[in-house]
């Protein structure tokens, strides 16, 4: 009798241990950035519990990475931020032997992301896109007339247009690293990545002139605002605007949204998946990266969020309204017109933030 109680206790203990070992992987990704059925698929395939959490600004993610102990296994910083975080020692090198699907990746994109993460030692590309103009086409035509070029930066950056459009609402990304290069491009500056005092002064002049007409500086609310018809223009990220287009179409509320890559040129950015140096479960993190790099899974994500990805093999599985849409997969001519930017150093960053506070608050 005694023995069987002991045996029972041992069995219970073993069960408890097994339960404690149930694996978990914590993923921290941008909001509205994945087909959520993929999360269930990952859990079904691997038996690992996936805890998925979202953010909407690189700054927030960066602070967690620099503080350490975030508890996340996979995070998704943008290239410029990734580069700085690699330098600060925030990520662990990828073990490529655990990532057989890495052969699916697209060399064209890898060449461009090499600037931020040479050789792709620390990260894989998840999605890439452009920063451009989201337009409520009917309202803009109503305010500015049918002939106005909706695909030009002047739609927002020309104060005369901005003033008229302010009555129906303009949202702008709360991200000076994206808006300053755009202001420089609008002003005809040679290098949108110029971080000199003269360049910043010029950008501030352009931004200050339109700042009174900006309804709000925010990096995610414009999806709903555009889709509901609350605003008529947003300076935002390609896929987010396309999600707004889709939501408006689904709601059938008479709002038609369009995304334009500015004809003057646009910023091309890359969101990279990386594993924090103190990730609790790096093994599961590698499994997640490998799962994401599967051609069909990556295609499912792109089909859902309307962003292009850095996965060549996935292109066979992309819907026609994704791979065939020049706003998502631009043609060669547009692609040549896209620029990339490099991170700001600490001194430059302070000037930039200060500039941005002045622009936003008018002080």
């Amino acid at each position, binding site marked *: 009798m005694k023995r069987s109680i002991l045996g029972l206790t041992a069995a219970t203990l073993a069960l408890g241990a097994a339960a404690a070992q149930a694996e978990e992987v914590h993923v921290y990704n941008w909001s509205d950035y994945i087909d959520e059925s993929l999360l269930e698929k990952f859990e079904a395939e691997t038996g690992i519990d996936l805890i998925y959490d979202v953010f909407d*600004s690189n*700054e*927030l993610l*960066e*602070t967690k*990475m*620099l*503080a*350490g102990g975030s508890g996340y296994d996979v995070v998704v910083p943008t290239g410029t931020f990734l580069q*700085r975080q690699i*330098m*600060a*020692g*925030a990520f662990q090198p990828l073990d490529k032997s655990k990532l057989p699907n890495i052969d699916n990746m697209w060399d064209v994109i890898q060449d461009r992301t090499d600037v931020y993460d040479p050789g792709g030692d620390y990260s894989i590309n998840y999605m890439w896109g452009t920063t451009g103009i989201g337009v409520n086409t009917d309202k803009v035509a109503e305010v500015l007339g049918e002939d106005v070029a909706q695909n030009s930066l002047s739609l927002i950056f020309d104060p005369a247009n901005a003033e008229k459009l302010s009555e129906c*609402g303009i949202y702008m990304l709360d991200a*000076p690293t994206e808006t300053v290069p755009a202001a420089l491009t609008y002003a005809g500056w040679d290098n949108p990545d110029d971080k000199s005092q003269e360049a910043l002064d010029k950008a501030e002049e352009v931004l200050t002139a339109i*700042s009174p007409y*900006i*309804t*709000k*500086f925010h990096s995610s609310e414009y999806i709903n605002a555009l889709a*509901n*018809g*609350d605003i008529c223009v947003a300076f935002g990220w390609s896929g987010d605007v396309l999600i707004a287009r889709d939501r408006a179409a689904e709601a059938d509320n008479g709002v038609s949204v369009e995304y334009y890559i500015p004809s003057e040129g646009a910023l091309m950015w890359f969101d990279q998946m990386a594993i924090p*140096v103190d990730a609790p479960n790096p093994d599961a993190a590698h499994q997640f990266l490998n799962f994401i790099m599967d051609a069909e899974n990556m295609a499912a994500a792109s089909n859902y969020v309307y962003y292009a990805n850095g996965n060549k093999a996935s292109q066979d599985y992309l819907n026609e309204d994704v791979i065939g849409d020049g706003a998502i997969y631009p043609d060669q001519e547009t692609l040549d017109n896209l620029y990339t930017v490099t991170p700001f150093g*600490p001194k430059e*960053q*302070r000037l930039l*933030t*200060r500039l*941005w*506070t*002045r622009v*936003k*608050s*008018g*002080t």
Partner: protein
Amino acid sequence: MRRLILILVPYLWLLALFLVPFLIVVKISLSDVALARPPYFPQLDLSGGWAAIRDFFTELDFENFAFLASDDLYWKAYLSSLRIALISTLLTLLIGFPVAYGMASARPEWRPTLMTLVILPFWTSFLIRVYSWMGILSQNGLLNTFLLWTGVISEPLTIMNTEIAVYIGIVYTYLPFMILPIYATLEKLDGSLLEAAEDLGCSRTSAFWLVTVPLSKPGIIAGCFLVFIPAIGEFVIPSLLGGSDTLMIGKVLWEEFFNNRDWPVASAVAVVLLAILIIPIVLFQRNEQKNREAGQ
């Protein structure tokens, strides 16, 4: 002995939850920004022995505080936060006092129900309540739709993303913190004092001003502190409801911390904010105590 333990508990609480974190913040405010994890230098390394600790202290300086003084952004933000917090506190008092007075004058069997009604909003998440205000105040929101429908206005009002929305948000959120302490003092108020005042020839209004209001002063002061102190450092409400020109110290702190990755300057901003709050409050309380002693 037992008394000592009883006194010790709140002091330990203060030490662990206020003094230690505060000293850490002060320490960071004296260091320099660096590209590392965590992003400041020097780090305190106890394994290095006394020499390392001495080196650590020589690396600290007041550079960041000098920087705060040199840039007018910070003073503007402090002043603007003070103004917003003061106006919100006054508005909350103007609304909260009559509500508390009404509750205290209600029949005793009604009071628990009224009390529950005041606390009820806390049962839902604070964030959800602020988000619902966005739904009410936005351009196509409930308020504008209703006013347009009734014909009171012909053009939608712009409330969302302005300072007015911030005031609405703060007053709404902190109202219970004003009502509850005032109600607590009013409820205990001895009704015979008012009768005595009237017997001695006071009108009802002047009895209210000469008896009720002075006696409820502790509640009013407690309520004002409970609203003013969190309002001045408020970050969530101005960032969700406020516009781009709403300058508050909470947002500046966020920018230093998140955008500039400058933890030392962010910590310096926090230390100065604390000084701005604590020094007047301590002076005020000392003055109150003196008055009380003089009264006795």
